[in-house]
């Protein structure tokens, strides 16, 4: 009975006419795209939103932007709203990978293709067209490897974890743990959440530095913001960040480059937020009925101190 009612609705609304074989080809400039963003919690996220919004403008796509304010349920509601409104494509930057199945099914029933960006979801592959992500485990692993090399496999580390249970945090932790597992002398002294924020990164670091005086020689932060906070705490404790204590983080936002140029941050692993161009290329293909790969890894790289000066000019975020 449910299918019936969906079908009835679909036939009433020509905007989202669904036929299983292939959609009626359209041009980019004719379509409406609904974009459900996580929120605006970090520089990375804002660069991500901006990239997509600017690209949409450039390509004359009507983009409906919904800020989820970091609440999963808001995002679910926004996507449902897009379905009700009958947009042509839904773009989701999920706050969490788990918890999307019923909503994606709904979109599928309404015949609206879904593109995921910045994070994948934990659901059957046929529920979405494609997913565009960075490899978070790789990022963590890369950071771990770099730190191992830098310290000759001998480090006592404070890990500043992201928000508890956020899967980015979980994956970056996993990757890092994998990498240092090969080196018996690399130890995580403490692993505390800094909530991805500078304030908490600094507060936690201050406290841990006082509690483990002289024990620590490396910091691994799950994002640049926490690392920047930690750097301030290290300085306040009378130590030299980047020398006495190695600092590595992930994201590679502009302030991180500035810190690297000042010699306070040792390295940052890039997690590229500029999904806009690639995203709309993909959407273009989808609305024209072409096949797209299920998974696109947005490549990242590691930036070290030495490269900072050269790279900073070209960093758009």
């Amino acid at each position, binding site marked *: *009975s*449910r299918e*019936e*009612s*969906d079908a*009835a*609705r679909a036939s*009433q*609304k020509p905007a989202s006419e669904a036929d299983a074989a292939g959609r009626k080809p359209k041009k980019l400039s004719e379509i409406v795209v*609904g974009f459900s*963003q996580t*929120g*605006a919690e970090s520089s990375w996220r*804002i660069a991500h*939103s901006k990239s997509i*919004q600017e690209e949409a403008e450039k390509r004359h796509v009507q*983009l*409906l*932007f*919904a*800020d989820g*304010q970091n*609440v*999963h*349920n*808001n995002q*679910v*509601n*926004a996507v*449902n*709203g*897009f379905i*009700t*409104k*009958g947009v042509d494509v839904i773009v989701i930057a999920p706050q*969490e*990978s*788990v*918890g*999307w*199945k*019923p*909503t994606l*099914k709904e979109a599928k029933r309404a015949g609206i293709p879904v593109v995921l960006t910045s994070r994948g979801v*934990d*659901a059957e592959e046929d529920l979405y067209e494609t997913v565009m992500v960075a490899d978070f485990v790789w990022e963590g692993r890369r950071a771990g490897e770099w730190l191992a090399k830098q310290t000759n496999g001998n480090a006592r580390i404070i890990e500043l974890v992201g*928000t*508890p*249970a*956020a*899967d980015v945090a*979980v994956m970056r932790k996993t990757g890092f743990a994998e990498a240092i597992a090969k080196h018996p002398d690399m130890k995580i002294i403490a692993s505390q959440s800094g909530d991805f924020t500078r304030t908490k990164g600094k507060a936690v670091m201050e406290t841990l530095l006082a509690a483990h005086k002289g024990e620590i020689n490396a910091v691994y932060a799950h994002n640049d913001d926490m690392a920047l906070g930690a750097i301030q705490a290290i300085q306040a404790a009378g130590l030299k960040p980047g020398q006495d204590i190695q600092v590595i983080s992930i994201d590679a936002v502009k302030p991180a480059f500035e810190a690297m140029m000042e010699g306070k941050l040792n390295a940052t692993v890039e997690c590229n937020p500029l999904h806009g161009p690639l995203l709309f290329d993909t959407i273009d293909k989808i609305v024209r009925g072409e096949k797209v790969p299920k998974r696109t890894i947005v490549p990242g790289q590691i930036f070290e101190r030495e490269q900072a000066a050269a790279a900073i000019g070209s960093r758009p975020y």
Partner: protein
Amino acid sequence: MLRWDRRDLPLMVTAVLLIALYSGVLVCYDAARSLRFLVDLIKGNAAMGLCAVGMTFVILSGGIDLSVGSVVALTTVLVGTLVAGGCHPVVAFCVGLAVSVAFGAMTGHLIHRFSLPPFLVTLAGMFFARGAAFLVSMQPIGIDHPALDWIVDELGFALAIPGLDRTWVPATALLFLIVLVLGVILGRSTSFGRNVLAIGGDRQAALLMGVPLGATTVCLYALCGLCAGLGGVTTALIDSAGKPNIGAGLELEAIASVVIGGTLLTGGAGSVVGTVMGVMITGIVRAVINLDGRLPSPWHHISIGLLLLVFIVMQQVLIRSAPAARGVEYGHHR
């Protein structure tokens, strides 16, 4: 027998404004002109609405419950873990509800037995339940079970109104509506409802009038726990997942809905019907911003604030200028 009473004035005003708001949205956004929009509204706010129904009673009694968001999370992970461990979802739901009711009853017991401020106890409860949720499962767990899929996909009914579209009303929305009706009945037509109002209106007087303070308080918070548990079940259904970190900030949203619906935070006056209107109002305001889709992130916050502000101010101005509001309030104020 319906009778005009000054006590109903805030409710009337809120209803009128809600209708005005909804009509305004209908005029401005054609995407809203469908049954589906309405159902979305109910479905999307079901978890929060369920919590708000329970919260209404607690607030009516002059208390507050900050733990609902965490209890929602606790319930979802319990359900998720149990189902992952091979339990039937329905059994898992029952376990989740039992735990949340027990949790609520415990809160109520502490509050009454040691006459502690509800704010503190439920704040501690909020932290405790959150920690417990993480203890049950550190990571989000997807729930995969045919029975669950059946509930999500098949349980419900198709609603069609001639001239409008046909749409599917899912189990979650149904659950919310049923609890709502039960909540209204509980509030209006049971001695429990009256006792709650009495405690909130004047605790000392209620005691002198023979209201069983202890039993009512425990039941109250147990009820709120139950509603939060149902909110958790709903969330688990909507997400097909159990997540230890979900529901942060839900308590404030629920409290806001209750208060916007005309319930006094100091207790003693208000109704479940008002709360439902409050839930709808906050829901519509959020939905409108998403429907519009042109606002950048900061304006999402600002517009929600502004719209609610305009609403509240109009509500107050109308209530005060209504002719029935003239005259004197004698006697008690608390």
